[in-house]
């Protein structure tokens, strides 16, 4: 098992390097002057010196290698130091990726914004998965029943309605008309675990964004679980399990469920890029100041290092989730491990 995970990780690292290269390449191809935000009163030769000092005149490959050094060596060390409050060598003077607009390390801002995004994204994915698996299995078990038909229709809806529309619709109904939930997410709200009213405010503002993402995530997963469970229900081993006298709940919950979940786990990993996109849109709709909103504002401000870091960071999340899915895949299906 360990060897299998190691082998998968060996694939993940080159993938990340290639992605960082592609991102860099796109930014390099793009016309645009990194000093365009500098006031016009600054003379041209000063401007040129600024470009020189920030390394914009270096050859493309050198710039990319420099960025890689910052991203893959300096930033992890820095993160480790700030978690363990230690210091290796010149920890104050170490180069970091600097945002053009805030002039502070880009990853610090990302760490600040990350909790909000992870709350919404994580809860949405968690609830979505928890709902989708039983719904998919029951739909397959009772194929063409009322439950199956209603379930198929609802998942079709959730699959087809874009989150920016369902989100706005939820705001129109539940915030504007009924006034049940706040229409935007208040990040300054400091959750006190000792006070129920404080926790309740947090829950109230999380309900709508999380529900929207849950619906989005549950739909595609439930459809896939259903298809996968249908495949398994007709297999010989299910007949064997039944004919040796196992109870129906055991046949479904142990035999069919476990085998149906194998492809679902892969799909879960494949949907992560989509969920990140969904989170960006959900954050825009509900005005949550998470990573997604940071990305949009940085793009509007032309803050290239920030945009680059966020895009790379989301690619990193995708690759990590792929690795987790691979590990789960190996855990669920022994055949994969020895391949």
């Amino acid at each position: 098992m360990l060897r299998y995970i190691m082998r998968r990780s060996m694939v993940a690292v080159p993938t990340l390097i290639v992605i960082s290269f592609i991102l860099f390449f796109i930014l390099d191809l793009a016309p645009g002057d990194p000093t365009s935000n500098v006031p016009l009163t600054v003379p041209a030769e000063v401007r040129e010196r600024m470009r020189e000092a920030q390394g914009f005149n270096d050859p493309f490959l050198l710039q990319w290698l420099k960025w890689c050094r910052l991203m893959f060596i300096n930033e992890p060390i820095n993160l480790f130091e700030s978690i363990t409050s230690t210091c290796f060598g010149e920890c104050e003077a170490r180069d970091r990726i600097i945002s053009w607009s805030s002039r502070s390390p880009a990853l610090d801002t990302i760490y600040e914004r990350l909790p909000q995004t992870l709350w919404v994204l994580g809860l949405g994915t968690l609830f979505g998965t928890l709902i989708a698996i039983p719904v998919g299995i029951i739909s397959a078990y009772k194929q063409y029943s009322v439950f199956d038909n209603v379930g198929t229709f609802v998942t079709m809806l959730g699959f087809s309605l874009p989150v920016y529309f369902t989100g706005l619709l939820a705001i129109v109904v539940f915030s504007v008309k009924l006034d049940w939930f706040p229409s935007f997410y208040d990040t300054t709200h400091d959750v006190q675990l000792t006070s129920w009213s404080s926790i309740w405010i947090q829950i109230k503002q999380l309900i709508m964004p999380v529900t929207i993402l849950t619906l989005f995530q549950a739909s595609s997963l439930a459809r896939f679980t259903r298809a996968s469970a249908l495949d398994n229900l007709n297999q010989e081993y299910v007949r064997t399990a039944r004919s040796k006298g196992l109870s129906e709940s055991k046949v479904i919950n142990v035999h069919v469920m476990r085998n149906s979940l194998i492809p679902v786990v892969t799909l879960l990993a494949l949907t992560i890029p989509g969920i990140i996109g969904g989170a960006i849109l959900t954050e825009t709709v509900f005005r949550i100041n998470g990573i997604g909103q940071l990305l949009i504002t940085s793009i509007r401000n032309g803050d290239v290092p920030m945009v680059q870091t966020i895009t790379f960071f989301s690619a990193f999340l995708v690759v990590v989730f792929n690795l987790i899915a691979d590990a789960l895949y190996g855990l669920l299906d022994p055949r994969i491990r020895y391949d």
Partner: protein
Amino acid sequence: MTDLANSPEAIDAPDELPEHRSLRSDVWRQFRRHRGAILGLVLLTIIFLAVFLGPILLPYDPFENNVPDRNLGPTWKHLMGTDNLGRDVFSRVLTGGRVSIAVGIAAMLFQVILGTTIGVLAGFFKRLDGPLMRLTDVFLSIPQLPLLLLVVVLFREPVTDRFGQNLGIFLLVVFIIGITNWMQTARIVRGDVLAIKEEEFVLAARSIGTSGLRIVTRHILPNVLSPVTVAASLGVASAIITESALSFLGLGFPADFPTWGRLLFDAKDLITSQPARVIWPGAMISACVLCVTFIGDGLRDALDPKLRSKG
């Protein structure tokens, strides 16, 4: 039973000959069984007609301001009311649909052609398989929306300078949606090509000296057509959603150019005063995508020989 002598194999067949069935009629027969797909096809045809004929027939110019009539509610004169500059919302929604649907179809064509080409190359030529599939994996790991936003912002000016404001954005959006969505098609096609390559008819074709290109176009492509059709229909849906998402974030087509996502973007700040303006374009996007998804579902059932033989 009059022409028995003309058909020797019908001698021990039942009383009447089975009617002739072509693949196309079989597919259509199965497709008709799928109630959702038929409903989707009808509704989608109506949307298409409305979107492409509506703006010609309607008396209002979707771009012309008419400030005295601004912010009207729905009346018989203005079915969906007017916006804050007095433009007829119904005409704008229909005009916006043209762009959304055009982007959907163009991006679908692009991604299907790209995906099929890469899938066939990877499946047919063993040497290309490894590198191309690694490339597919890398593209699958790139989060689409951030990349899309990045490229649109960076390349907006040079592309619009060369091709003009609207056409430039159109090409850019189609290109980038296509380039981030071809992977599923490529994977499916590659899998199918790998299986078909081993079939005897390919061997037969090869043994009479058919060239590789001809084997691909004559024998392999027709056999991967059905999974590609399904992928294509789902591709239209996702392209429409993505284009609208881009416009919804305010980074798509220019402000005075209505698309469904742009109308949604303009309306979202008026959500408390005029909630209906959010609902119209959103409902159009959803209806369109829902129809296409149902059609895709019906096609999948209809093109699956296992399901069809039961019917």
